[in-house]
Structure formats: C-alpha cells, structure tokens
C-alpha cells in the first residue's frame, strides 16, 4: 500500500528562454494525502503547469525524484501515465469529432475493451450531463461543455490520481458548479485530485491548498490554516456618501491598509494589524478572513510608491456634470445571425461617458460577437449601433482613432519584442515625433514594461501580455476603450492590478466597455448587461441586478448566485413558453 499517491522530493526544473535559463521549480517537497482534493494556486509563472507536467512524467526533473502511486516518473513514466488521469489547460478534444466519437477515441487510446468502455462512457455521460449531446461536434459545444467532456475523457479509465490544470477557466458559473460536483463525486470514490485554479472560492472548497510562488512552495495547508493568521485584520467598510470605487481608492492609499477591494456590500479591507483605520463617516465591521485575503497577504508584497498606479495624464479632462450625461454608446435591437444560428438576439443598451460598462456571461453568450459588431469588425444583421455618434462599420480613420481595443487573448505580434509592438501600434495610430516618444515612455513606465522591452511577446507571462496589450490600446489616449475578456487566464494579483488601472481610467473620464466571465468583477462596473445564449437576461447597476435575483433562499445573493438564478429562471420561462 502506498502512503501518498504523489510525492515530490527536492524537485528542481529549469527551462531555456533564449540565452537565459528560467528556474521553473526549485527544491520542491510535497506530498498529497490520499483521497483528497488539493488546490494548486499561485501567480502566473509560479510553476503550476510545470508541476502538473512533471507529475505526469511528461517532463523529467533536473534533480530530485517524483513518485506517483509508488512509481518513479523518471524510470517508469509509462506506468505512471497508464495509472493517472490528466487534463491539460487546453484539452486535446478533436473538434470535428462528435462527443461520442471523442469518448470512443480516448477509450481506444487508453486501451479500454469495448464493453468496459461503453459502460464507463454511460456513467460519465450521466455524471457530466452530456448524454443528450452525444452526436454534437465537440467544436460546437460551449466552453463549459468542452471542459466537462475533457474531464470525462481524462476519467475514462477511473484513475487513482487525477491532475486537472485550470479546468474551470472560461467556464460559466453553472458549468463551474457542475464541474465542481463531478470532482467532489470523485473524491467520494477515493480518487486523489490535484487541480490548479484561478478562483478563490474553489480554493476554499479544497481540502488542502498548495501555494506556489516563483517555483517555490510558499505554503501548503488547509484553507482554515490559511485564514487563521488573518483573524481580526479583515473589515468591511461602507460609506454612504461616497461611491464604492472612490472609497476603495481612498482606502487603498491609507497607511496601515494593505489591500482594499470592492464587494457587493461595500469595500473589503485587509489591514496590516488588527486595528481599524477608520475616518469619520465610515462604518467598519470586522469580517471573517477568506483565502483571497491570505493570498494577497502572502503574495501581494507592498508596492514601490513610484509604481503605484496613478492617472498621471488622464486621457481626457475630468467630465463635467453635463458631460457625464452624454451617451457614448447606443445600441438598439442589435441582432446577429451566423447562418441560421442567432448569436445575438435583439439587444438594446446605452453607455454613458466615463462609465465602466460590463458585459457578463459565459463563453458563447454572445459577448464577443456584440463587441466585434460595436468595433465595426462584424456587420450587424439588424439593429443600429453608434459609438460616439458614428457606426464603426463605416467609420473614418479618425473615428477609429477614438477607440482602443484589446482583443480576446491579447492579440499582439508574438515574435516581435514588447518594444517593437509598442512602436508599431503607436505608428499605426498615427503618433509621431516627440509625442510618440512621450507616449512610449509613458507606456513603459506606467505598465512597468521596462524589464521586458526586448523580450519576444510569445515568451511573456500572460499577466505581462495583458499589461502590454492594454498599453498598446491606450497609446493614442482613446476616450473609449473596448476590452474583450482582458482578465481571462490572468492570475488574481494581475487581475487586481488591472482593475485598479481601469478604475483610474474611468475616473479620468474614459468610457470603458469590458466583457468578463468572472462574476466577482461585476462589482467594479457601473452598469452591467448579463447575457446568456445571445440574450440579455438583466441590465442595470450591480445592485439592481442582485436585487432582481433576491428570493427567500438568497436574501443577499452574490453576483454569481444572481447569475445562476436569472439563467435558471429564464430557462424555465422559455421552456414554459415553448
């Protein structure tokens, strides 16, 4: 009998990046308790994926030993691979095969007999609720369904150890909840699960959390043990007279406050000590610590004062009261058909100047389609849309110069260096001479890109790519900014920093339109549209949307609960109607 299904002892691994070597993991020691769920967290580049791939025997450590279910990965990699289940970040589904054909293929690849495979597949299809979609092409599935199918393929052989690399990224709250139920069901069957995640609420539900940072094990403990040192240092602050965003800015800069973030109920503050740093008019309440607080406490080293994000050159002047009422984006009855498939179904909304406008919804909800139509990249099938008074579809170069756009997955030139990307986009936006130099210097300083100037974009961590993409979109100081899933796949700290920038931009009068599938990010927005399957489920301020979802079971629903509630309500309505 093996005491632990996975043990790392003194494991180091480095990779070549150009001329340098990057130490991905150094002297890592850890073991997983049998039959538990362990969460793997850490910022980008902490070594999470490397750890996973080492555990599968796909990578061989530079030094140290890894034993999986009692077998050394160095000598018995095939045996290890036969005994575990592994789902990489981008699971290799064959998009042109149907769900059933994918399952059959993986069953064959893993050497299951047809009888055993059929029985196991039935079980898994039931578990993942993918049964009705057996004949659908994998490429036509939604993001969440694809992830579930990926898990199902990894589970075909009922492994004792299951490794999941960010299985819930880009998945809507309902699918995320379902995936989580599947994982917990596995635990009951005695499977040991190691999963990396970017969601703190998932970390809270794990038995143990491994926190990695720069290739080193920072802490490995139960969630409760992570919370423990923070007791009494967390507060919920409310201030009736001030907007939450403004309040957060004030609190963040107050001495003694380590971190401040916006929640549904108010601003959550993590202090360096147990004493509240209240100012008259503010209401401070002690709150129970969460894993997010622990994460920030352990990893969010105090920043240098000069790297603090300040809107030092607000792209436009602060809006006057009259200006603030100006409508910048107006969309009426917007529809989009792809063949017979209706991707966007008659949406109507308006965005006012200086607002942060959020488009929320799962993958496949029609957010990106809406965005591409707004930017003039796709023609609308019907309906009208105007950005600053013009339809971007027929916009002049000058009108296009008024918007900044960050595409999904940060479309940058991969084999150009960070500097070359900045140089190209600055010229593409018609900047020249001294003005161009000033903006380039600004971008490098403001987004802390100096260190990465000569690194190829392909080699940059995702968080840095995100900063660079935002920098490129802001070089020409656009008054309107479109951001398509700018936080997807980015680690929690980078997300936090990102939202600080966006807040600062909005304070400076920039209108920001943003799509996201992180429900907690909704709280940063002034105005929201909740989308599902091309339809607008609800719109309004975050508070208004949460109010819509209030019921007896959830007197104070979170945005995620509200979203699930609204989708379920909507689905039952359409079912009744048909």
């Amino acid at each position: 009998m093996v005491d632990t299904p996975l043990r790392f002892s003194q494991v180091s691994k480095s990779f070549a990046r150009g001329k340098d070597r990057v130490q991905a993991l150094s002297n890592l020691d850890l073991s997983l308790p049998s039959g538990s769920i362990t969460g793997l967290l850490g910022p980008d580049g902490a070594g999470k994926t490397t750890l996973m791939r080492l555990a599968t025997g796909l990578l061989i450590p530079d030094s140290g030993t890894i034993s999986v279910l009692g077998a050394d990965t160095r000598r018995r990699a095939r045996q290890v691979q036969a005994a575990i289940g592994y789902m990489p970040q981008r699971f290799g589904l064959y998009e042109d095969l149907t769900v059933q054909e994918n399952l059959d293929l993986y069953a064959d690849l893993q050497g299951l007999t047809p009888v055993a495979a059929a029985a196991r597949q039935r079980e898994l299809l039931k578990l993942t609720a993918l049964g009705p979609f057996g004949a659908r092409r994998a490429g036509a599935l939604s993001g969440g369904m694809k992830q579930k199918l990926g898990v199902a393929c990894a589970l075909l052989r009922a492994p004792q150890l299951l490794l999941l690399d960010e299985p819930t990224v880009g998945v809507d709250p309902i699918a995320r909840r379902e995936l989580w139920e599947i994982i917990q069901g596995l635990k009951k069957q005695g499977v040991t699960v190691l999963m990396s995640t970017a969601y703190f609420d998932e970390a809270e539900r794990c038995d143990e959390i491994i926190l990695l940072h720069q290739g080193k094990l920072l802490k490995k403990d139960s969630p409760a043990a992570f919370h423990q040192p923070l007791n009494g240092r967390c507060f919920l602050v409310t201030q009736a007279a001030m907007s939450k965003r403004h309040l957060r800015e004030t609190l963040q800069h107050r001495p003694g406050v380590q971190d401040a973030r916006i929640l549904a109920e108010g601003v959550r503050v993590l202090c360096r000590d147990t004493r509240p740093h209240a100012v008259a008019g503010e209401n401070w309440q002690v709150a129970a610590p969460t894993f997010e607080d622990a994460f920030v406490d352990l990893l969010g080293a105090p920043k240098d004062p000069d790297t603090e994000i300040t809107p030092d050159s607000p792209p436009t002047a602060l809006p006057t009261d009259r200006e603030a009422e100006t409508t910048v984006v107006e969309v009426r009855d917007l529809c989009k058909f792809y063949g017979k498939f209706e991707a966007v179904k008659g949406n109507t909304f308006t965005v006012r100047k200086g607002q942060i406008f959020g488009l929320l919804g799962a993958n496949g909800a029609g957010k990106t389609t809406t965005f591409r139509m707004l930017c003039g990249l796709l023609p609308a099938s019907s309906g009208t849309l105007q950005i600053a008074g013009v339809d971007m579809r027929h916009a002049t170069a000058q009108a296009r110069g008024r918007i900044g756009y960050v595409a999904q997955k940060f479309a940058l030139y991969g084999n150009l260096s960070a500097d070359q990307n900045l140089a190209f986009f600055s010229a593409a936006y018609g900047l020249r001479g001294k003005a161009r130099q000033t903006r380039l210097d600004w971008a490098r300083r403001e987004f802390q890109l100096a260190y990465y100037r000569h690194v190829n974009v392909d080699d940059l961590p995702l968080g840095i790519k995100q900063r660079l993409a935002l920098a490129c979109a802001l070089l020409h100081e656009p008054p309107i900014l479109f951001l398509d899933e700018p936080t997807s796949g980015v680690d929690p700290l980078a997300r936090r920093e990102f939202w600080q920038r966006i807040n600062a931009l909005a304070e400076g009068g920039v209108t920001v339109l943003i799509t996201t599938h992180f429900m907690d990010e909704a709280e940063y927005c002034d105005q929201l549209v909740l989308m599902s399957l091309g339809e607008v489920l609800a719109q309004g301020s975050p508070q208004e949307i949460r109010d819509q979802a209030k019921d007896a079971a959830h007197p104070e629903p979170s945005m995620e609960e509200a979203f699930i509630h609204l989708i379920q309500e909507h689905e039952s309505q359409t079912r009744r109607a048909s």
Partner: protein
Amino acid sequence: MLTRLWALVIKEFLALLRDKKSRFVLIGPPLIQLLVFGYAATFDLNHIPYAIYNQDSGFASRELLGRFQGSPAFRQVATITHNAQIAPLINNQNALLVLQIGPNFTRDLLLHHPASVQVIIDGRNSNSATLALNYVNSVILSFDTHWAATHHWGKPPAQLVVRSWFNPNLLSRWFIVPGIVALLTLVVTLLVTGLSVAREREQGTFDQLLVTPLSPLEILLGKALPGFIIGALEGAFIILAGVFWFQVPFIGSILALALGMALFLLAAIGIGLMISSLAVTQQQGLLGVFLFLVPAIILSGFATPIANMPKLVQDLTYINPMRYFLVIVRGVFLEGDGFHELWSQYWPLALIALGSMTAAAWLFRHRMQ
C-alpha cells in the same frame, strides 16, 4: 499615411525575420533549389554507360570504337563476347546501350559496301534514350565523314552544317538557370504574401489592425510591399548567381528585365494576397500556395515546352504570369532582348497583375465584412 505604411512594412519585416523558422524558409530552400537546379537538373548526358559486342577483328571497328572511348560522353562498362550477355546488361541497367559490330564490318567498308552497326538501347526512359542515340549518331557521322575522306569514297551530295544560336553548345544549364529566376521568385513571393494575412488571423492581430486608423488599402499595401522587396532581392540574388557562379551569359537589358520582374512580382503578390485573404489558418494558406504553385510551374514552359501541350491546356497558360516572365528572363539572358522585343510579354503580365491585385483588394474588403 506614409508613416503608418512604413510602420506596417517594418512590422512585417520584423515578423518575418525575427522568427528563426521563417528566416530559414526565406534563405534555405531557395539556396538549396538553386544548387539542385543549377547542378543536378540537366538534360545533358555524361558518362553514358555502354557495352561493346565486337565480332569484327579489323582495324575499322577499332577505329570506330576508339572514337567512343575517347569521348567524355561515353563510358565503357563491359566488353561481351556472345549474344546472351546483352539482355542482362540492359535489364540490370548496367549499360544504357550495347554497340554490336558485325563480323564483316571492316571487310564491307574496304569493299566500299555499306556496313551496319547495331545499337541496342534501354528505352525505359525515352528522353535519355533519344539523347543517347543522338550522341551515338553524331559519333558515327563523324566516323563516316572521316572514313569517306581518307578512303576515297567521294563527298556526300549534301552536308549538314549545324549552328545553334543563343546556346552554341546546347548546354541545358543556360536554359534552366534563367528559369530558376522565375521559379524561385514566384515561390518566395507567394510564401511571404500567402501566409501574411493568415498568420495575423491565426494570432488574432488582424482584428487589432482593423480597429486602428489604418485603412484596408494601407493594410493591403503594407502586406504587398515586403513581398515585393523580398521577391526582388531574392530574384536579383539568383540572377547574380546565374551570371557569376553558373556563368550563364547575360546579354540583354537589365532595365527590361527589371520591368518584367516588377510586373511579375505584382501579379504574384496579388495571387498570394488572394490566397491569404481566403485562408483562415496558415496551414490553409500554405496549401493554397502549393495548389497554385505546382500547375503554375508545369504550365509555364519551365521544363517542358508549352507548344507540346494540348490546345486547351495551351490556352490555359495564357493566364499564368510565369509563362510571360520566363520568356522575358530567357530572352534577356540569352537573346539580348530589350523593351521593344518584350512588349508582347509586358502587357499581358501587366493585365494579370492588375487583375490579381484588384481581386486581392476586393477579397480583402469582402472577407472583412
């Protein structure tokens, strides 16, 4: 406008040249193809392996065979003594041909009778067989003339005096190397332009480009210029290699060739950009390029003459830009052509260039909708 265009061109070059793989694609294969075509692709036969079956013991057959042995085009591999040995030699490709001289060869000749020499040749590769036979004929012809002169047969009534114009020694290298200029220029230009838009689509940067103030026309120009510059550089390099390394004469007007090359490049870029606008991924782009490239080369007259093709296929070659450029490049190299002689090639090439660029621009706009 110019600053933006310039930035685009710089970016295209950086994207091409900073990547090790694409840098290699631009330099490696053209160089290899130049060497392969320049050295290995030749219609000339050297060291033809042959065997001798000489049943004649006289001096005339020895004299005739001496002419074969002395020629660099032939290499004797065997001397055989009876009929049964012939078949295995040819079957196993040890010899391409067997010369059989009958027992009465010298006697017949001395008696002023016609004497025959039998040539048994491997006809599996008809092209080589025809060429080898030609060589044998010319050797025997020169033997005949010499014999006639020294043994008082009198002069033959008509004499054939052959003079090859433009390529006096009929070296195939002179025919092939100018052709490579056209071939490689086309390959490189298509690869550079055919993948450029597809690469951006794959990376997602194409959307990013479209939301900038750059107009579609500027983007099109920004994509066309690098292809033009790289294609022209590569073409010039091969011309220089042809002249200075392979020693092919260049007697025409450089400017006439430059004009032809410019028109040819524009036509190729238009086709490349059309392929690129249609392709969603780089893989599709590459497939598209090769789908065009292979028939374009075969139907260009690069290796086999267009005049030999069926009528319908000949008509098809009129839309192939490489057809015209091959005439231009060979004309300038070997015939010393200038603008005046090549006018009939320029205007169809210009028409094709105009057509393909317009189609690319239209597709470019259309695919964005």
